[in-house]
């Protein structure tokens, strides 16, 4: 997939006692991108955003090459971690983008620490339960079913299906699945208290949803739109659950003007 965009550096950052992996690239106002349950990387959309902003894409504790600290037991722990993360980098106010699990973390961050945000972008975000719009059960899916559930873009899907993980990659994946279970086993990928709290959010909010998301129904995006004052929901047509990976041009087209409007 040919995507324009600027390069990045991969480094380690110590936040308190926890060392995490961090992808960073570009120049301009700070944008933080929080990844989903599948793990962190420099996403094609991050590369596009880095043309206009400084993009920070941290790998959550318990994922990738980041530490797996014993205190990590819930999304609330990650919210506090990312507060420390901003302090460590000296970032006063940032644009916060979160996808899937990362969208849940971003929404929780916004309800409690919005004074640190310029804007909020939720992409196919987990975090709330909408009766009748059940999120599919990731924990019972075999790898093939999981890939078919997550991706609509044929090239991305094909790449996922063809993956031949090395033993090292399997070890990382196993650890990530355990971390996801810690965060999202019960209640399943949501916080029952979050829907009511979303009404506190006063920062400009954009919600993106892959038109073909088979993991989290778009009714969840609509519920986010209704619960967050002034939020706007935009569908990304040629994407499934992972628009930032599957449709970087469409995402960049939606996100960049929105961020520029709220500097």
């Amino acid at each position: 997939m040919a995507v324009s965009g600027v390069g990045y550096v991969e480094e380690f950052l110590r936040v308190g006692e926890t060392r995490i992996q961090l992808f960073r690239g570009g120049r301009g106002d700070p944008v933080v991108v929080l990844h989903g349950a599948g793990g962190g990387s420099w996403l094609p959309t991050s590369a596009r955003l880095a043309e206009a902003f400084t993009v920070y894409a941290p790998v959550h504790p318990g994922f990738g090459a980041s530490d797996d600290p014993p205190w990590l037991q819930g999304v609330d722990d990650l919210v506090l971690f990312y507060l420390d993360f901003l302090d460590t980098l000296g970032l006063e106010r940032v644009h916060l983008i979160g996808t899937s699990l990362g969208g849940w973390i971003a929404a929780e961050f916004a309800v409690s620490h919005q004074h640190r945000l310029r804007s909020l972008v939720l992409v196919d975000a987990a975090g709330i339960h909408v009766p009748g719009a059940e999120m599919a059960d990731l924990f019972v899916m075999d790898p093939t079913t999981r890939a078919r559930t997550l991706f609509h873009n044929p090239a991305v899907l094909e790449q996922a299906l063809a993956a031949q993980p090395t033993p090292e990659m399997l070890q990382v994946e196993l650890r990530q699945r355990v971390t996801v279970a810690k965060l999202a086993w019960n209640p399943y990928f949501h916080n029952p208290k979050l829907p009511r709290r979303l009404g506190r959010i006063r920062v400009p909010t954009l919600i993106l949803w892959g038109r073909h998301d088979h993991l989290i129904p778009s009714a969840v995006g609509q519920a986010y739109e209704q619960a967050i004052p002034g939020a706007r929901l935009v569908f990304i047509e040629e994407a499934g659950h992972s628009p930032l990976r599957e449709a970087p041009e469409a995402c960049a087209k939606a996100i960049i003007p929105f961020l520029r409007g709220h500097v």
Partner: protein
Amino acid sequence: MESYFFHLMPWPHLPEDFDEKYDSAWVTLPNRLYDPVRGHEIYNQYLDELEYADALGFDGICVNEHHQNAYGTMPSPNLVAATLARRTSRAKLAILGNALPLRDHPLRVAEEVAMLDVITGGRVIHGIVRGLGAEYHSNNVNPVYSRERFLEAHELIVRAWTEPGPFRFEGKHYQLRYVNPWPRPLQQPHPPIWVPGTGSPETIVWAAQKRYPYLQVYSPVKTIRKAFDDYRKAAEAAGYTASPKQLGWMTLIYVAETDGAAWQEAKEAALYLFHKVSKRPLEIYLPPGYLGLNPLVEQARVDKVKSRERSFEELVQDGFVILGSPATVAEQLRAYQREMGFGILCALLHFGTLSHELTLRNLELFAKEVMPNLRAI
């Protein structure tokens, strides 16, 4: 050697098209397939079999806990033990076991098992398990904390039975302001604790350290041999020599008049157990964190899942099934006992779709013609 009759209480009426239509007999198998009218008949038939084992002189009868599946229909083993408590008089009631981490209130287990112990005059064996991986889906309990919860619930229950109450318990997973169960158990300091397992090394070492009998659930003979050796090693490391009474083997046994009849009569029923009601996708069998963080351990379990692919002949050859005439079965068990040194046999004498009549005859032949040969070893 002591002989126990172990029952799984499987659902024997899966539809003809089960293989094609359903990918799991666990967690997601639609419960419309459970017919309560037939269930009434089945439960009572199974209970009759357990009661008959008491009359036949088995050392004990065993019940266990599984949830939302066709493999074993005893979500509450304590309820089944309660129905047996006053209908049996000699056999130990072995609850193998209560799945402690699945409980948000393990004190309830301490209360119920103490009740059973008092009612039966001290015939209860308190088995404790983590529950299979699938149960963590069914109960929405986080598999990551399975072992922590198991250990903490175990500690709570033992302390509830042995320390004067009321006292306070503040754990990571369980917090109670008043631990003060009425009744207290009759057996002192508490009912015997047994640990059935599927081979987790941590469980084996822990059981050996605590001197709790460890029971290996049906597995290939080489796995059982290794489990027992690991237990004995862990016992030596803990400063004592394990006795055969601390090692149990839970296996499927079928006795008929002749070897040929045994092979013929047991095959379909046994394959129903191994090929149908044991069917579950890997992701349901091994939820994340259930086995810790070692992918090699996961791989070993993946191999075990493949027992679903074994033919009947292979199941017999690998020791999942012991069958034949009374003389053949007794000789095989004596040989295995000499080799592996276990002192507890939990015989699955009903399995799969085995009929009530054949189950009763299996119980009878085992009790009358096999068991006497095992008593002295």
